[in-house]
């Protein structure tokens, strides 16, 4: 026994220097995170406080709050901001209303051997190009000869056409899988024993749903809403293709970033701040552990 403890096993350099091993492991991801990701966000934030030469559109590096003042005092910009926020909230709610029953069906009603197929069917559209899906909705929504208008015309109805409703439908379509998957995972994790206990204590289906299922899957729902909300908030291509005359936050950024980069940066800071505020609010729900 004494002989073995006198000669401890010899490890490599990393084994003898745990801190060096940790540093080597962390170096690449930390460089990526700090320099590329946080660095570009910091550059965005810094640029928002600069201004441009009115004649040449060259960026002038003097500190000013004018960009933010312009964003918050121009009615058209405020309107765009509120509209974008409204669209993002609406998309999140519609995704939620669609995703909860579908996820419940997938996790608890469908036969277990069908589950992988159903998950694959939800995942497959993510493989299709974003632009193909948006143009698919352009073909669906076109007022005169779109698929929806064609389908509804025998009933004397028109389609939703291009505009806010079209944007909401298209964004719901694009982000629905991001809501279904976490909610599905939440339903899969829900222990049957809890539902049995609820039934044993005399709760009917609706009462069990309200008092047991909803609190248990709430973090998953919030996790999904982070995706649907933040992805909708930053989107601008959908508004260009199916929005008609309606513009969103990202369109204002896109219209300005060549001629007035600091103003575009100030405008682009707003969704980042809104998403950070949203993350701060939902952090307490435990949703961030469910992503």
């Amino acid at each position, binding site marked *: 026994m004494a002989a073995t403890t006198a000669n401890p096993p010899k490890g490599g350099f990393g084994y003898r220097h745990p801190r060096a091993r940790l540093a080597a492991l962390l170096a690449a991801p930390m460089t990526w995170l700090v320099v590329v990701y946080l660095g570009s966000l910091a550059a965005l934030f810094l640029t928002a406080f600069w201004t441009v030469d009115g004649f040449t559109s060259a960026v002038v590096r003097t500190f000013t709050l004018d960009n933010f003042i312009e964003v918050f005092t121009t009615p058209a910009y405020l309107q765009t901001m509120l509209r974008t926020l409204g669209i993002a909230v609406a998309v999140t709610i519609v995704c939620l209303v669609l995703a909860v029953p*579908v996820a419940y*069906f997938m996790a608890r009603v469908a036969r277990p051997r069908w589950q992988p197929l159903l998950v694959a*069917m939800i995942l497959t*559209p993510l493989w299709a190009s974003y632009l*193909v899906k948006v*143009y*698919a909705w352009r073909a669906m929504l076109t007022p005169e000869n779109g698929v929806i208008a*064609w389908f509804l015309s025998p009933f004397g109805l028109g389609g939703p056409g291009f505009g806010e409703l079209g944007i909401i439908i298209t964004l719901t379509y694009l982000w629905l899988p991001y809501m279904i998957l976490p909610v599905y995972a939440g339903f899969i994790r829900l222990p*049957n024993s809890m539902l049995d206990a609820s039934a044993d204590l005399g709760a009917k289906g609706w009462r*069990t749903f309200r008092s047991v299922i909803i609190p248990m899957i709430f973090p998953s729902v919030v996790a999904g809403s982070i995706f649907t909300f933040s992805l909708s908030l930053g989107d601008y291509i959908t508004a260009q293709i199916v929005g008609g005359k309606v513009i969103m936050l990202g369109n204002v950024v896109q219209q300005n970033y060549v001629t007035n980069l600091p103003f575009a940066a100030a405008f682009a800071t707003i969704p980042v701040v809104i998403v950070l505020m949203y993350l701060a609010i939902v952090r307490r729900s435990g949703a961030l552990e469910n992503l």
Partner: protein
Amino acid sequence: MTTSRGTKVALSIFAVIAFAFVYVPLAVVLISSFNAGDTLAWPPQGFSTQWWGKAIDNEGVRNAIVTSVILGLVATAVALLFGPLAARSR
């Protein structure tokens, strides 16, 4: 499991509608690719494979596919390198 039969039927119908919502627009794209007309109008004006022929004959399209495949492979390789390291170092 306490889900009643009626609830199960209702959920199944809802799920079928939701899956239709997911797949109908993709089907519209696929059907439109065989459209004989030259606008994205519904209903299609007859069957034709001219758009598929034009896409395959177009050198820009072929180059774009090759570029996409290369980018996808490189991005996957980078993500495979950094992702496990980031997960390991927590």
